[in-house]
C-alpha cells in the first residue's frame, strides 16, 4: 500500500507509527503472517500430527501388531476397536495408522525427488536460455503429453511392484510443473536491475543464480512442495487401489479396494477409516498450499 510508505526523506521513524519490528526479512514476515492465521495453524497441527504418527509407526512403537487377529471377522466398531475389525479380524485403526506411514513416506520421498529435479532444470533452463532451454522445455513437453496415470503404470511395471517403485514413479513424473514455473520466474528475475548490478560488479554466474535469483523464486518451491505432497498421496491411493501399489503393507488404497466387496454386507468401517484419514491430510495440505501462497507471494503483500 503506497499510503503507508508516506514518509519523507530523513524522517523514517517519525511519520508512520512503526509498530512492526524493524529489520524483518520477507521470510520472517511471511512466517509471522502465517502464524497469525488460525486456519494455517490448525493445518500445521494436523500435518505435524500425521508426521508424528508416521514416525511412531516407522520405529515400531505404534501399529506393529496390525497383522494379528484380535477378534471376530468383521466385528463392528466398539470402544476397544474404534474402526472395527476386517475380514481376518485385524484392527482397522491399526491398518489405517500403518497406511498413514506409507502415505506420508510416499509424499515426502516424492517431494524430495521431484523438487531438486524441477528446481535444477527450471533454474538452468531459465537462466542460460538458448539450446539448453529448448532441450529442457522439449523434454518437459514430452513428459506432460503422456497421460500421467499411464506413465505411472509403465514405470511400476518396469520397476516391479512395491513401495520403492511408487517412490520413483511419482518422483520422476511430478517435477514438470515446478520446472516450468521456476523457469518462468528465473527468466523474469534474471533481467531485474539487482541482477544486472551484480553483473556490473563482476559477479559470477554462480553468485547471480544461487545467491540472488533462486532465493527470490524459492517461495514457489515451498508452495509447489505442499501441493506435490498431496498429489503423491492421492496417486499412491489410486495405484494401490489398482493393485499396483504397496504389496505387504496396508495402505489406504488397498483398504478402499477391500471395501468394494464389504459394502454390500454393510461393513462400512474399513472404507470410513481410510477416507477419513485421507480426507484430513489432503484438506489441510490444500489449505496450507493456498495460505502459503498468500503469505509468501511478494505481489500479494499488504492486500489483506
Amino acid at each position, binding site marked *: *500500500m*503506497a*499510503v*503507508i*510508505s*508516506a*514518509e*519523507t*526523506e*530523513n*524522517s*523514517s521513524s*517519525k*511519520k*508512520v*507509527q*512503526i*509498530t*512492526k519490528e*524493524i*529489520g*524483518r*526479512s*520477507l*521470510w520472517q514476515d511471511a512466517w509471522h503472517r502465517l502464524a497469525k492465521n488460525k486456519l494455517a495453524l490448525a493445518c500445521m497441527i494436523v500435518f505435524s500430527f500425521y508426521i508424528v504418527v508416521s514416525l511412531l509407526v516407522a520405529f515400531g512403537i505404534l501399529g506393529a501388531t496390525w497383522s494379528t487377529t484380535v477378534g471376530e471377522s468383521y466385528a463392528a466398531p466398539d470402544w476397544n476397536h474404534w474402526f472395527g475389525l476386517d475380514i481376518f479380524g485385524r484392527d482397522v485403526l491399526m491398518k489405517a495408522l500403518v497406511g498413514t506411514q506409507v502415505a506420508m513416506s510416499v509424499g515426502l520421498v516424492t517431494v524430495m525427488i521431484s523438487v531438486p529435479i524441477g528446481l535444477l532444470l527450471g533454474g538452468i533452463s531459465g537462466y542460460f536460455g538458448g539450446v539448453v532451454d529448448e532441450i529442457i522445455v522439449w523434454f518437459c513437453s514430452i513428459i506432460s503429453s503422456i497421460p500421467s496415470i499411464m506413465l505411472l503404470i509403465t514405470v511400476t511395471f518396469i520397476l516391479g511392484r512395491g513401495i520403492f517403485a511408487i517412490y520413483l514413479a511419482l518422483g520422476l513424473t511430478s517435477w514438470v510443473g515446478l520446472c516450468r514455473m521456476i523457469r518462468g520466474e528465473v527468466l523474469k528475475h534474471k533481467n*531485474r*536491475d*539487482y541482477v*544486472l*548490478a*551484480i*553483473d*556490473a*560488479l*563482476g*559477479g*559470477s554466474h554462480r*553468485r547471480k543464480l544461487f545467491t*540472488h535469483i533462486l*532465493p*527470490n523464486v524459492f517461495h514457489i518451491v515451498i508452495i509447489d512442495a505442499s501441493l506435490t505432497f498431496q498429489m503423491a498421496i492421492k496417486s499412491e491411493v489410486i495405484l494401490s487401489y489398482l493393485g499396483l501399489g504397496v504389496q505387504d503393507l496396508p495402505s489406504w488404497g488397498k483398504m478402499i479396494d477391500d471395501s468394494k466387496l464389504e459394502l454390500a454386507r454393510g461393513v462400512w468401517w474399513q472404507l470410513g477409516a481410510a477416507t477419513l484419514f485421507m480426507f484430513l491430510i489432503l484438506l489441510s495440505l490444500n489449505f496450507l498450499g493456498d495460505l502459503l501462497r498468500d503469505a509468501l507471494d*511478494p505481489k500479494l*503483500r*499488504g492486500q*489483506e
Partner: protein
Amino acid sequence: MMNDIIDRTNAKMNKGETVFEIKNLTVEFNTSDGMFKAVDNLSFVIPRGKTVGLVGESGSGKSVTSLALMRLLTRNGHITSGEIHYQGKDLVKISEEEMRSLRGSKISMIFQEPMTSLNPVLTVGDQLIESIQLHLKLNKKDAFEKALALFKQVKIPQPEVKIHSFPHELSGGQKQRVMIAMAIACDPELLICDEPTTALDVTIQQEILDLIKSLQVSLGMSVLFITHDLGVISNVADHLLVMYRSKLVEEGNAQEVFKNPKHPYTRGLLSCRPKLDANPNRLLTVSDYMSEDGTALKVDPARLVEVDRQGSRVEKIKESEDILVIRNLKTYFPIRTGFFKTVRNHFKAVDDVSFTIKKGTSFGLVGESGCGKTTLGRTILKLVEPSGGDIIFKGQHITGLTKAEMRPFRKKMQIIFQDPYSSLDPRMSVEKILSEPLEINSPEMSRSEKNHIISTLIEKVGLRKNHLKRYPHEFSGGQRQRICIARALTLNPELLICDESVSALDVSVQAQVLNLLLDLQEEFKLTYVFISHDLSVVNFMADTVAVMNEGKIVELESAKNIYQNPKHHYTQKLINAVPKITNYPVFALN
C-alpha cells in the same frame, strides 16, 4: 431537449459557480499496522470551468482524495467523516447505484499509466465505442461516428486508421489521448487527471497538457489535476491546493501561490526543482524551509548563492586528463524473423557515437525514451556487448576484454539504475547488499574492514548505521536510491553512470539525491555520466551535454552553451518542452 442544452450552456458560462464542494473530508485506511489517516479534514471547492491543481509528494493523500471523490477507495479504505456536495446531493451518502451512474458520465478520470488502462485484446475504437454505448445509449453506427469525432477532438493523427488499432500499436502519448477521449465522451462536469503525464516523455507531456487545457476551455468542464511536480501544473492550474502529510497546507489562486507562497512546504517545493536559467551551488530542499515537525525555518543565506558553477569549472575541465574516450561506438541488436530466425536487419540502438569525458566532470546524456541513451550507458560498462568502435578507459582499450580481464575495471566503473524498487535484492539485508561488492572483488578483506567501509558509507549517503539490519522493503524510494548509491561507491569507483537515477523520485526527494550526488562528487573526485530525459536535471548536474536522438548524438556542447544557444532543432524542441515556472521568485527571506 433544446432548452436543456441552453440551460446547461448558460450554467457553464456562469462563472464562479461551484460544481463540487468538499467539506471536512477524512479518509482512513485499515492496515496491518493500525488505522492510517490518509486524508485529514480536507475542505475545498472546485469551481465550474476551472482547473484545480492538487500538489503533494507521494503518500501525501492526493490520489486518495481523488479516489474518495469517485468513491473508488480500496476495500480497506473508508470515508470516516465529511461531505462531498454535488448538485445538492452528498456523494458520501448516496447509494452505490446512484454513484455508478455518475462515474464516467458526470465525473471521469484519467490515470498515470496509459499502458495498463487499455484492454490489449480489443481495438481502441471498440473500447471507446463500448463506453459511449454504455453511457449515451447510442446505436453502433452513431457511437462509431461519435468515437471518430472524439478521436479528432483529442488530435490523434489519422483518426480513421487509428480507431481500428490495438493498444500496442499506439505510442504512449496516443494511448493517453485515447484515455482522454474516453473520459470526455459523455461531456463530464469534472475530469480528474491523476499524474496523467508522469509516465510520458517531456515533449509528449507538453502536448498532453496543452490538450487537457484546450479541452477544458472548449467543453467548459472543471479539471482536478493531481501531480507531485509544481512545474507541470504551473501553466495549467487556475487554483492550487498543496497537500502535505494528509493535510491541506496551502490553497489559493495559482498565480498568487507561485508568486507568494505562504507555507514553508510550498516554498520548498517551488525551490527544489532545478531550473534552466539558474544554477545554484546546491538545490534548496523542503528541509531548508521547514523542520521535521513543520515549523518554518529561516533559510541559510549561504544556500541561496547562485553561482556560475559551470563557468568556474570550464578551466578545470581543460586541465584534467581524459578518463573515458568513446570512439565510433556502435551497439546493434539483430532483428530475427522467419521460421529459421535468420538475421534480416539490425536495430541500431547506439549508432556511431564518439565523445570524451574529462576526469572529475559530469557528462550529461539527454534524449527521449528509446533514443539509445540507456544502451549507451550499459555498453560503456560492457553490460551490453558493443558491435563496433572503441571504449578507452584511462588509456586502456576495454572493448575486446573477456569477463575475467574486465574484472579490475569493474571496480572503477559503477552504475546506479533508475528503478530503486527493482535494483535491490528484496531477500537481502542492506548490510549484505553493501558487502557483496567487496566479497566479489576483495575476498581477502577481513570482516571488520568490510564493516568499517560499509558503516562509513551508509552515513555518507545520509542514512544511519541501524539501517544496515533492515531489508529493502522497509525503505522509501529515495532511501533505496541512497542505498544503491552506497553500493556503487563501496569499491571506490572513478566513473559513475547514473541511468535516470532520479526520474522515479518525487521532485522534493530528487533535489536531495542530486545534492547528495554533488557532495559525493566533490568528496570522492567522481566522474559522472548522467543520463536523463529531464533537461533541467541534466543542466543542473552536467558540465558537458550530449543530446541523443535515434542512436546518434545530434549535439555535443558545454551545458551553458547548449541551453543558451541550441543549434540542433531537436535540442530546441527538448528545451521548449521543459515546463517553466514563470515569474520564478526567490524566497530569500521568510
